[in-house]
């Protein structure tokens, strides 16, 4: 640090003081005699100064001051391609909880690439919230690519229900009605499986209530983009590059695999 000893330091101090005086106009007058200053902050009070008439909504969106701000929540599906490594699920779950995102379901499972996993989140958020979910997910280091799926995306849920077997024929007909399957029938219980859209599974569960549902388990939504559309951009890039062979489901050019374990990245 700069030591200040003897005359040199005094000269330096004097120079410093001069500079400050120049820079701050009369603001330093109190140095000579503090008692000259008996007044605190001055200026027109809050009621005597111009105030802006405009407003923003609670989401920070500029709005017509007269109108009531409303950003209605909508239900949508977000797909995230993530690195298949420990801790990712915890990281995503922690993010959702910490940022208070309104989430209906979260599923995770493998993809065609052993080094990646897909998470599908069903959320209910107003528009700014949906964008935040996307961007906050994207920001997580193990998350590769995130996309909100369109309304036409293919979505599926699965429910396994265990109902009482008092009326096996009736159970059977409801199973048929919902294109379900009987997984297990024992004295006392019938266990059935139903898949479909979230709403279809809701209706099926509702329908089985009449038999008395002993136990129920449901998955979240698994979803893919429809048709030729890629579910996330990363997959698009990867598959375009690797020219996946649809019969073997293997890349024809393995050298471009971007997640070779343990290899240093050359992505900049």
């Amino acid at each position: 640090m700069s030591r200040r000893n003897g005359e040199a330091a005094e000269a330096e101090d004097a120079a410093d003081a001069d500079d400050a005086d120049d820079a701050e106009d009369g603001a330093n007058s109190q140095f000579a005699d503090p008692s000259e200053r008996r007044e605190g902050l001055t200026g027109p009070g809050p009621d005597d100064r111009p105030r802006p008439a405009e407003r923003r909504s609670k989401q920070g969106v500029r709005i017509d001051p007269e109108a009531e701000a409303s950003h209605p929540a909508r239900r949508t599906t977000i797909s995230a391609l993530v690195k298949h490594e420990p801790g990712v699920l915890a990281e995503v779950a922690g993010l959702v909880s910490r940022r208070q995102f309104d989430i209906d379901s979260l599923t995770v499972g493998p993809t065609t690439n052993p080094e990646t996993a897909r998470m599908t989140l069903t959320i209910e958020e107003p528009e700014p919230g949906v964008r935040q979910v996307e961007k906050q997910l994207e920001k997580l280091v193990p998350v590769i690519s995130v996309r909100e799926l369109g309304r036409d995306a293919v979505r599926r849920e699965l429910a396994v229900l265990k109902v009482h077997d008092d009326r096996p024929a009736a159970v059977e007909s409801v199973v048929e009605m919902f294109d379900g399957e009987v997984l297990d029938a024992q004295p006392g219980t019938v266990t059935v499986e139903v898949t479909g859209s979230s709403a279809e599974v809701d209706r099926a569960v509702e329908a089985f209530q009449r038999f008395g549902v002993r136990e129920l388990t449901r998955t979240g939504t698994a979803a893919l983009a429809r048709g030729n559309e890629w579910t996330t951009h990363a997959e698009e890039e990867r598959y375009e590059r690797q020219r996946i062979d649809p019969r073997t489901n293997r890349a024809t050019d393995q050298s471009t695999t971007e997640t070779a374990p343990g290899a240093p990245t050359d992505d900049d």
Partner: protein
Amino acid sequence: MSERARTAARPTEEAAEPRDDDRPESSDDQPAEPATGADAAIAALTAADVEHVFGVQGGAIMPVYDALANAEAGPSHVTMAHEQAAAHAADAYGQVTGTPGVCMATSGPGATNLVTGIADADMDSDPFVALTGQVPTEFLGNDAFQETDTVGVTRPITKENYFAGDADRIGATVSEAVELAGTGRPGPTLVDLPKDATTTETDAGPEPGRLPTYYDAPEKADEAAVEAAAEAFARAERPVVLAGGGVVKADAAPELRAFVDAFDVPVVTTMPGIGSVPEDHERCLSWAGMHGTGAANMAISHTDCLFAIGTRFDDRLTGGVETFAPGAEVIHADIDAAEISKNVEADHALVGDAAAVIEQVHEKLDSRVEAADTSSDRHADWREQCREWEAEYPMTYAAPKDEPVKPQFVVEVADEATPDDAIVTTGVGQHQMWAAQYWTYRDPRCWVSSHGLGTMGYGLPAAIGAKVAAPDREVVCFEGDGSFLMTVQELSVAARENLDITVVVLNNEAIGMVRQWQDAFFEGRHTASEYGWVPEFEPIAEAFGAKGFTLDHYDEVADTLEAAFDYDGPSVVDAQIDPRENVYPMVPSGGDNSGFALSEEQL
């Protein structure tokens, strides 16, 4: 600092902690390649040019310390008194140098003590790396002695964290942690190092510069967005530039200055953005927000185009978002896309590095201004308005000589007595606000504080980190009496390392900011905020081996501060200030920035 600290170390310290690096004769039988996971971790720090590490020893981290001692040309180590302080010191080091500050701690309590400092670094986007010891993997999950799920605990407060259970991966992982901490939007990373992995032999060394696959830090903003933003800025009649901490982190102060000068536009900073533009610059209205200047808060409230750079629109800046720059078209430049429209909707999103984006907009405006022949004259009335606000709302304070010393005066005198490039660190509370308000910052990286997390006790460990980072610069730490007592033990470190820092305790014998709020919002009930008795800081300083001073009169302020700054080593000034003084202007929490109160009656 390393040489300094080491040579200045007391003989007993030398004996207790033999340090052989930099001494060729003692590096006799060291293998050239890393021998263990711990060696690889240290090699990764060395390869990343990490020069200093702040930390505290302990069981599970011992192999890493051993490797540090054995490393040739490895980082030097500052032994802190408490892990929280190690984290703050590393954080401040990162703020001052712009390169990751590194700290080390053992498992369990060592790691959990770091947590406050990690969260602080996370909130303020500081480049920061923590290496933590962990129990051997065979004990993991068994609630072993000093076992904590460090990765789990720190997951929400790190940019990324790693469990390095494989000795062969430690070098690469530590390399990645350091690189990632300083790349893109800076932030804290942590590597948890189980003791078996650090003691296992490995040939695998570091991989300097390694980044996670798919990690992509944007550089330039989208051209079309820049075009539209420039369009908006050019049309604006009341433009304001709002410079956040991102401008400092991106070293974009020159670009900002050029922009402000070229377009002659008023500029306001956030608190972390202090110093991104010289506060004595003609167009600088100082900082906005809860305790910002009247002019800054008026300008951001009335602007019709806010060019916000590297800010996350924290609630202490915005007040209620309903009334934040409510008539402004917002151009938001940030390197983190997730900050765009998080709190305040951006009409124009410029995702990129602050320096690059400012230049992009600058160039676009340049070409536009020439084409349309629109000069900055069209803002003349607006500039005049801002100037009037500055004149209307000066940062004055009453300082009658027959009353106790005002803290603002102490800050101003300290500013006078120190060079322009002096570094100011603070704790959190009223003293922090006065230090921000009444010191004139002229350069980036001179203001080192705990903004987002608001960590009391940040000041002293931060001063240690700042001094290690910039041994040739004056380091002044403002603390409050309450805040100072939270990390006062670090005086032992400042004395041991003979760090020439000056702590100025603005002592009002209270948790002043809490008391101020109690007066304003809790009908004056001073619950747990007034001490009634506080220890004497001068003898405390002396007992720790620092130089102690006390002042309680206007006549003593200049001389006492001068003597403290002159003292070659750590010094503490107990500045006994007027306990009735409060911080104004003030925008109440969630309030309207243009309605800032100048006194309690106006709240």
